[in-house]
């Protein structure tokens, strides 16, 4: 199983690639809504990308209130 740091790195890589943001501009504690400039439809798109990448299922209600990459990584890690 990958470490949480590895999971976090992969999330940041994926977000940077998908939303065409320079990777160095993303930090673990960033509010991803603000940093990526995404709305809820794009958030669902990111959720799908994460599920497909990590081969996990992430019920939306578990992500309520989650807005930073580090917490998101913890949620994914718990399902790996």
């Amino acid at each position, binding site marked *: 199983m990958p470490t949480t740091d590895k999971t976090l790195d992969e999330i940041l890589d994926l977000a940077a690639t998908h939303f065409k943001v320079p990777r160095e501009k993303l930090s673990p504690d960033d509010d991803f809504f603000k940093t990526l400039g995404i*709305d809820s439809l794009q*958030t*669902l*798109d990111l*959720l*799908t990308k994460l599920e497909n990448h990590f081969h996990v299922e992430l019920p*939306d209600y578990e992500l309520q209130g989650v807005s930073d990459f580090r917490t998101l990584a913890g949620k994914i890690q718990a399902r790996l």
Partner: protein
Amino acid sequence: MGLIAKGVSSTVETFKGQTLSWEVVSGAIELALHRTPCNELGSLSLSEFEHFASALDGLQPNVHALIIHSELKSGFCAGADLRELYERSRPMEKARAVREVRDFLERIHRCLNRIDSSPLTTIAAVHGVTFGGGLELALACDLIIADKTARFAFPELRLGLIPGFGGIPRLKRDVGNAVVRDLLLTGRSFNATKAQQIGLVSQVVGEGESIRVARATAAQIAKFDRQTSAAAKQFIKPIPHDELRREIDIFCDLFSKPAVQAGLKKFVENRDAQPYLP
């Protein structure tokens, strides 16, 4: 036809409306949704769906399949136009608002029943958001082909409602009760891979590939005798008329409760980044 008078073009085989268009391509009708931001189904969409439903009888003898897809990147369809529903019903006396909602539901049920019962093989080629009424539209089709970006949900309970466009009876027809309860009672969404695992989706394809695969599927269907295909469909896909009627009644009963206006208001006024997350 009123729609034509408003400046949209229509012949038997093609139609270009404000929310949807159709054309016949290689023996299949391709119905494209294109109302921004994500094909929300409101009164104009309904009028154009009715136009399509009435044109279907004339189109059917010359084609073998119907493909429904979205031209918008955001997704297949985000469901009912909640903003319009809220704005229209808010100033109305409650009984009148419920009557108008019932009329809307009756009309959209007629359209979806026409698609559901069409002798053509019907394919929903979906991507991105396929929520609420969008999922109900897809469920009226015989096959759902989803690209990897597709997400499915019935988020209606957070508005104090149940799905009203035939979603529950048609979902029950296709998948097990555990899935029906999970989708309905939690309002959560799930992706195309999960949707295929539970039997909702027949094929999962790469991003942007659903329409191409739907066309290939339609070409395969064209090899078979139309009447045999229609008979097979009628046998394996009965329309749950009684439950569809019951769904309208329950929806209208719930619509009269205060929780609905509060739920709609909350959604419409929501400026959070996550209004589409249940």
